[in-house]
């Protein structure tokens, strides 16, 4: 018993044995390849299909409705290989196009096509987008994960950790990125966002499914179909197992971080809340003074009566001032932090230098974001330019109020 496939040859249905169908398909595919670039390709293929149909009809009768494999082979042999006649004169563009396929057969013809596919998604074509599918907030982490080819869960954890370490600067960064990074809405943008490789679970599953159905199309044999499905399921199982393990690892990681930051606190010392409030107030006041200094430096070129030397660019002055502010606030911050964690310099306490380093990391991040925005977004650049007179005005009025009182 054999499986029978019905084919349409130039408008007529014929039933062929499966292996005969394969032979015919290969013959017609090869013919189409040979005729690639021939202006009359479709017509020639139709003629050839018609001729094959005529030959099939000759072997069929009232009591014979299926063309067996051997008959298909005989018909194909009788037809002879399709040669592009214009290729013989070697002056048509079609001849050159057909040549590589002719030389290397099936493998050779698949080669250039595979190369084209790779050319569509070089590393440069990848772009940073926000991806809404499967996103939790704005799709920033999703997009970053796709861009850096890292599981989105890891990016999210990094973001949470960053936010915890920088006391909220991570959230600010997220908001800024939400404004800066466009959303991938068209399929092309989505493709550019994901590059060539699956990075999120959704993407992986989508691709796997696609491959699964693509594979199914090519299997008309039930046996092969079943085998394919079995393999697919096995792969999916293996992948799911890996994914679960990864999730578990991530969760453990996360819990560890959580415990590190919100671990058991020491019983609050008497008067600690007062000390904490005082420290907080002091550091807020110092920060405000620092911000005023920055504003006055930007607006008038001087902070607290100290003029910025003409040879030093303004941005260096601003960054330097920010560094100074951080240094001034540092002892207060370190003290405050040490209160939060159980015991002074307890196991959960990152140490005073870590606190300083965190401040600088946040500062560097802020500077980087502002610099990037200023450089690449015209609106932000203009806004910053316009900010200056406003700042000057604000600084002037503050100074008057300060001196007047």
């Amino acid at each position, binding site marked *: 018993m054999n499986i029978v496939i019905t084919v349409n040859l*130039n408008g007529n249905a014929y039933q062929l044995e499966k292996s005969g169908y394969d032979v015919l398909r290969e013959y017609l595919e090869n*013919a189409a390849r040979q005729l690639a670039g021939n202006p*009359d390709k479709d017509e020639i293929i139709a*003629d050839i299909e018609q001729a094959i149909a005529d030959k099939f009809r000759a072997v069929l009768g009232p009591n014979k409705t299926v063309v067996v494999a051997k008959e298909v082979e005989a018909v194909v042999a009788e*037809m*002879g290989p*399709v040669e592009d*006649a214009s290729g*013989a004169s070697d002056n048509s563009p079609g001849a050159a196009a057909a040549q590589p396929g002719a030389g290397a057969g099936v493998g050779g013809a698949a080669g250039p096509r595979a190369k084209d596919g790779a050319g569509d998604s070089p590393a440069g074509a990848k772009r940073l987008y926000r991806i809404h599918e499967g996103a939790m907030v704005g799709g920033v982490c999703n997009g970053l994960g796709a861009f850096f080819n890292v599981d989105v869960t890891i990016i999210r954890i990094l973001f949470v950790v960053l936010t915890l370490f920088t006391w909220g600067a991570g959230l600010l960064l997220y908001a800024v990125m939400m404004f800066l990074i466009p959303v991938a809405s068209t399929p092309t943008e989505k493709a550019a966002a994901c590059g060539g490789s699956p990075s999120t679970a959704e993407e992986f599953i989508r691709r796997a499914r696609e491959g699964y159905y693509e594979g199914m199309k090519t299997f008309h044999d039930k046996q092969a179909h079943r085998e394919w499905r079995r393999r697919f399921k096995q792969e999916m199982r293996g992948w799911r197992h890996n994914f679960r393990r990864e999730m578990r690892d991530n969760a453990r990681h996360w819990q560890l971080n959580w415990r590190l930051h919100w671990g058991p606190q020491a019983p609050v010392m008497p008067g600690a809340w007062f000390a904490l409030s005082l420290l907080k107030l002091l550091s807020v006041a110092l920060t405000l003074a620092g911000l005023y200094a920055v504003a006055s430096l930007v607006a008038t070129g001087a902070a607290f009566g100290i003029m910025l030397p003409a040879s030093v660019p303004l941005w260096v002055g601003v960054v330097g001032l920010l560094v100074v502010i951080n240094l001034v606030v540092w002892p207060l911050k370190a003290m405050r932090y040490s209160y939060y964690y159980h015991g002074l310099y307890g196991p959960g306490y990152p140490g005073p230098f870590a606190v300083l380093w965190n401040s600088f990391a946040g500062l560097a991040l802020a500077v980087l974001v502002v610099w990037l925005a200023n450089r690449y977004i015209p609106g932000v650049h203009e806004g910053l330019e316009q900010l200056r007179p406003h700042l000057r005005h604000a600084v002037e009025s503050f100074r008057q109020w300060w001196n007047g009182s």
Partner: protein
Amino acid sequence: MSITEKFSSIRKGLLEFLVLKIISADKVYVADILKELHGTEFATQEGTLYPLLSKMRREELVDYEWKESDAGPPRKYYKLTAKGREQLRETSEYWQKLGGIVKNLGQK
């Protein structure tokens, strides 16, 4: 290398000339052409003939018309155009010239 192998490209090049000759006699369809060539040194197959006919039609040497057949769907019947007849005449002359040269060479 056998003689038939050596002359394969020459036979291939002559095919167009032969097809012109066959079509010039009568309106024919592809099976007729194949039948005429069958058993000769120039025996060929559909896989070669269809692309060749399509090229000749593109060069306006032949034209075809659809004709009903009793044994199935309508068929393409080919005939020569004026340009095709002219080409056939020129090629025949040239072929005779070639034959003459081959015949006369080496004879003293």
